[in-house]
C-alpha cells in the first residue's frame, strides 16, 4: 500500500475505504446529508502488520489551558509502514476525534461497525503538525551513588554495569543525527559527556564512568534533576532519561524533621516540574529497586517521587525495575539475574526512545462546553484514516469540579480497522442503484415533453373557447377585424355566420376573422396585445383558410 495510490480509481473500481454514510433516502439532499454527517465506518479489524501501518504514540497526553475557555490536549505520535519506514502523508482531514464515542461493534466475521454517537472534537488544518524534526537531543542522567553496586545476601548486584549495557543499546538505537548528553550524580551532578552526536564517544564516556568516593555516599536526587533540567533548557534538549536506584539522600534532607520531609519532596518536585514546563522538557524516570521497602532499607527506590515527576512533565508513569522479583526469579543465578536486569532496562529504554521520535503532534481543541467536568471518566477516541485502514487511539480523562487540570490516562492504540480494497460491490446492489438513478433520469427526460403537452392542451382549450361562429345577436356583428380595418369597406366587417377568433386576453377581446388571425402568425393583431393562440389546422381547413 502506498500513500499515492488509489485516490480516484479506488472510488470507481476497487471500492476503497473512506468514511461512509449509512442511510440513503430516496431524495438526493438526504444523500448529501447522510454522506456528510454520519461518521460511522465499517471494516475488518486486523493486526497492524496486516493493515500495513501502525501508529505509535510518543509520550502521554498533555493538557493545557483547562481552566480557560480554550482547553487543549496535545499528543505526539508516529505512523510506520510495515517495512518500518515512517509515513508522513497524514493530513488533518484524515483525522477525526470524539469524546465518548461508542465502542465499535465487532461482528463474528471480524467486521467492525462504528455506531454513530459521541461529541466530535473539531480538527482544524493547523491542529496536526508534521514535525519531521529529524534529529533529537536526549540527556541521560545516571545515578552514580554507591548503591548502584552493592552486595546483597553475599551476592554482588552491579546495577551500574547493567545500566551501562542497556545504555549502549539505547545509544545504538538513536539516529545518526541525534545528540546525547550524559550526567552522572551522587552527592552532586556532573557532566560525563557533553551534548554531542558521537555515539561511540558517548559509549566510551559511559564505559569509563566509575563510582567515585567519597561523593558516592549520598544521592542528591532533586538537585541533580534540577541541574539536568536547567542544562537541558539551556541546550535545547527536550528529553531527559533519569535513572536511579534510591531516593533523596543528602545531609540536608536527612536532617529534616520527618514530618517535614513529604512537604520538602513535593516542593522540590513542583520546582522541577515548573522548570521543565518552561523549557518543554520531558523527564522519563526509571527506578531500580524495591518500591515497597522501607525508606531506611538499602533497596528502597522512591518510585512515588519518580512517578510524580514523570507524570507532571511527560504525562507518563515512571518505569520500575522490581529488583526483589528479579532476585527471586534468578535465585542462585547471578548471571541470569544480571542478564534479566539488563534486558529489562533495555526494554524500558527502547520504549522511552519511542517518545523522542515522532512525526506528528496533534492538538485537540475540544469545545469547552462539551467537556464534562463531573469527576467521571470519559473516553476520547482519535482515529487516523489512511487509504485502507483506520488507526484508532484512545485515552480517558477525569475532570473534577474546581480542578484546572484533568487526570488523563496514557494513550492506548487500538487495533486497526482494515478495509478490503478488492472487495467488489454486490452486483445486485450495483444494478439496484443503477436502476434507481436511471429511472430518475428517465423521469427527468420526460418532464419537458409533459410540460409541453400540458401547455398545448391549455392552448387548445383556450383556442376552442376563442373560436366562435357569429350568431344573430352577437355583439361582434359590425365590428372591424384589426387586420382589415374600416378602410377596406363594410364588406369586411364581422357579420353573422363568420367564424371568428376573439382574443382571449381579457383586456383586449378583439374579434378577428379566423383567417386573419392565422395570417398574423396566430397572434392578435392589436399591437399592444399580440396574444398567441394557435388555431387547430383542421378548423382552418374547414374554413378554407390556406396555411
Amino acid at each position, binding site marked *: 500500500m502506498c500513500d499515492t495510490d488509489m485516490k480516484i*480509481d479506488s472510488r470507481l473500481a476497487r471500492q476503497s475505504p473512506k468514511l*461512509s454514510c449509512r442511510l440513503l433516502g430516496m431524495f438526493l439532499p438526504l444523500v448529501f446529508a447522510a454522506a456528510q454527517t454520519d461518521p460511522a465506518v465499517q471494516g475488518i479489524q486486523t493486526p497492524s502488520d496486516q493493515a500495513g501501518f501502525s501508529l505509535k504514540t510518543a509520550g502521554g497526553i498533555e493538557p493545557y489551558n483547562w481552566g480557560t475557555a480554550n482547553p487543549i490536549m496535545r499528543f505526539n505520535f508516529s505512523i510506520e509502514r510495515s517495512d518500518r519506514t515512517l509515513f508522513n502523508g497524514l*493530513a488533518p482531514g484524515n483525522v477525526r476525534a470524539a469524546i465518548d464515542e461508542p465502542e465499535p461493534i465487532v461482528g463474528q466475521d471480524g467486521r467492525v461497525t462504528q455506531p454513530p454517537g459521541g461529541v466530535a472534537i473539531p480538527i482544524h488544518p493547523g491542529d496536526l503538525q508534521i514535525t519531521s524534526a529529524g534529529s533529537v537531543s536526549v540527556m541521560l542522567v545516571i545515578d552514580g551513588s554507591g548503591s548502584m553496586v552493592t552486595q546483597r545476601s553475599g551476592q554482588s548486584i552491579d546495577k551500574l554495569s547493567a545500566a551501562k549495557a542497556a545504555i549502549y543499546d539505547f545509544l545504538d538505537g538513536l539516529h545518526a543525527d541525534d545528540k546525547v548528553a550524559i550526567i552522572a550524580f551522587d552527592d552532586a551532578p556532573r557532566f560525563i559527556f557533553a551534548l554531542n552526536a558521537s555515539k561511540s564517544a558517548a559509549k566510551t564516556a559511559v564505559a569509563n564512568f566509575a563510582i567515585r568516593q567519597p561523593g558516592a555516599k549520598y544521592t542528591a536526587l532533586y538537585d541533580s534533576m534540577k541541574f539536568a533540567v536547567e542544562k537541558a533548557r539551556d541546550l535545547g534538549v527536550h528529553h531527559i532519561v533519569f535513572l536511579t536506584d534510591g531516593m533523596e539522600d543528602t545531609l540536608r534532607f536527612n536532617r529534616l524533621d520527618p514530618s517535614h520531609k513529604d512537604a520538602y519532596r513535593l516542593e522540590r518536585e513542583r520546582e522541577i516540574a515548573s522548570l521543565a514546563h518552561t523549557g518543554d522538557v520531558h523527564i522519563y524516570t526509571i527506578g531500580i529497586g524495591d518500591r515497597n521497602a522501607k525508606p531506611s532499607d538499602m533497596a528502597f527506590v522512591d518510585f512515588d517521587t519518580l512517578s510524580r515527576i514523570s507524570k507532571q512533565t511527560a504525562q507518563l508513569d515512571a518505569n520500575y525495575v522490581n529488583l526483589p522479583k528479579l532476585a527471586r526469579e534468578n535465585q542462585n543465578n547471578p548471571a541470569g539475574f544480571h542478564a534479566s536486569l539488563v534486558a529489562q532496562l533495555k526494554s524500558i529504554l527502547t520504549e522511552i526512545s519511542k517518545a523522542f521520535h515522532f512525526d506528528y503532534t496533534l492538538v485537540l481543541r475540544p469545545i469547552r462546553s462539551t467537556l464534562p467536568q463531573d469527576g467521571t471518566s470519559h473516553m476520547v477516541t482519535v482515529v487516523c484514516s489512511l487509504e485502507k485502514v483506520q488507526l484508532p487511539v484512545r485515552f480517558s480523562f477525569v475532570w473534577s469540579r474546581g480542578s484546572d487540570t484533568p487526570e488523563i490516562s496514557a494513550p492506548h492504540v487500538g487495533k486497526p480497522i482494515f478495509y478490503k480494497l478488492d472487495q467488489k460491490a454486490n452486483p445486485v446492489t450495483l444494478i439496484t442503484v443503477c436502476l434507481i438513478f436511471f429511472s430518475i433520469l428517465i423521469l427527468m427526460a420526460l418532464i419537458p415533453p409533459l410540460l409541453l403537452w400540458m401547455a398545448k392542451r391549455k392552448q387548445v382549450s383556450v383556442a376552442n373557447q376563442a373560436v366562435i361562429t357569429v350568431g344573430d345577436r352577437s355583439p361582434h356583428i359590425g365590428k372591424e377585424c384589426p387586420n382589415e380595418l374600416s378602410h377596406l369597406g363594410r364588406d369586411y366587417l364581422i357579420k353573422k355566420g363568420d367564424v371568428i377568433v376573439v382574443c382571449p386576453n381579457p383586456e383586449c377581446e378583439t374579434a378577428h376573422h379566423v383567417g386573419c388571425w392565422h395570417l398574423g402568425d396566430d397572434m392578435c393583431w392589436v399591437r399592444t396585445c399580440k396574444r398567441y393562440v394557435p388555431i387547430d389546422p383542421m378548423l382552418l381547413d374547414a374554413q378554407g383558410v390556406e396555411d
Partner: protein
Amino acid sequence: MSPARSGSLTGGANRIYYYFVLGAMGGLVGWYFTAMVTVAGVASQVVLGGLLGASIGLGAGAFDGIACGSMARIVKFGGTSLLLGLAAGAIALPLVQTLYGSVSQADSVTRFSIGTLCWIVLGGLIGLGEGVSKGSQPWKGLLGGMIGGALGGGIYEAVGRSTASTGSVAEQSVLAFAVSTLGGFIGSSVALVTTVLKDAWLVIENGKLAGTEINISKYVHRDLGSRRAGIIGSSQWDANIYLPGDSDVLPKHASIGYRDGAPTLTALPLAIQRRAKTLVNGRPVTVWPLSNGDRLQIGSTTLQYRQNLKKRG
C-alpha cells in the same frame, strides 16, 4: 423561441437540460461499468478513465441524433464524442493520478484542486469532441467541457471522495450520484457555452424539427467557414444541418459557408440540376449572402437565419 410557442424540445433551455440528462446517464453508465471492473495499477486508471469519459461523451454527443430520431447520427456524433471521451479519460485519469500522488502530503484543499483538475481535463476534451463534430467552434466546446468538469468534478471531489465504497446501497448511491452529476454538468455546460456564445444559427420553422435551433457558428466563421461549409440536406451521414422528414430536401441540398466577406447560402449542383427549391425570402437563389432574419426555404422546410448582431457588428 419558447417551447410553449414553438413546441420544440430541442431549442434553448431544453437543449441544455437534455445535455445534462444525457451526460448524467453517460456518467451513470460509466460508474456502473467501472464499479464492475477490477483491474490493477496504471491499467486500471486508463481503463476506468476511458470508460467514464466514453460514457459521458456518448451521452452528451448523442443528443442531436436522439432529437431527430436518427440512429446514424447517434452513431456518428455519439461515436465521435465517445472516442474523444475515451481518449480524454484514458489520458486524464492516469495523468492526474500522478499529480495526485505528488501532492499526497499536501492539505485537503490542494488535493481537492488537483482532483478537480482531472475532471476539468476530462470535461474539456469531451467538450472539444462536441465542438469538432458539430457546428460550434472547438474552443467553445472545450471551454464548456472544462466548466462542466470543474463544477461536476468539484461535487465529485467533495461528495464522492469522502464517501465509502464498501458496497452498501447508500454508499454506492452517493458515488453514482457524484459521477452522474459530473457527467451531467459536463454535458450541460458544453450546451450552455455553445448556446450562449453562438454567433449564428438556423431556426427550423416547420416540419419534424420545428423550433429546433441549429448552431452554424463554425460554418459562417470568417476563417473556418471559408475553409469548410456546412452542408444542408437530408443525408443522415453527410449533412451537417440535417433536415429529416421532407422528401423535397435532397441529401446534399445546399451549403452555408463564408464567402466574399459574408455568410452565404449556396445551392449545391444537384439541387440546381433538379430545380429543387432553394429560396431566400421567397426568391430562388443559387448563391446568396445572408442577413439576420432571412427566411430560407430548402425543399418544403423553412428556416430562419439568425446571427448575433453585436458580435458580427
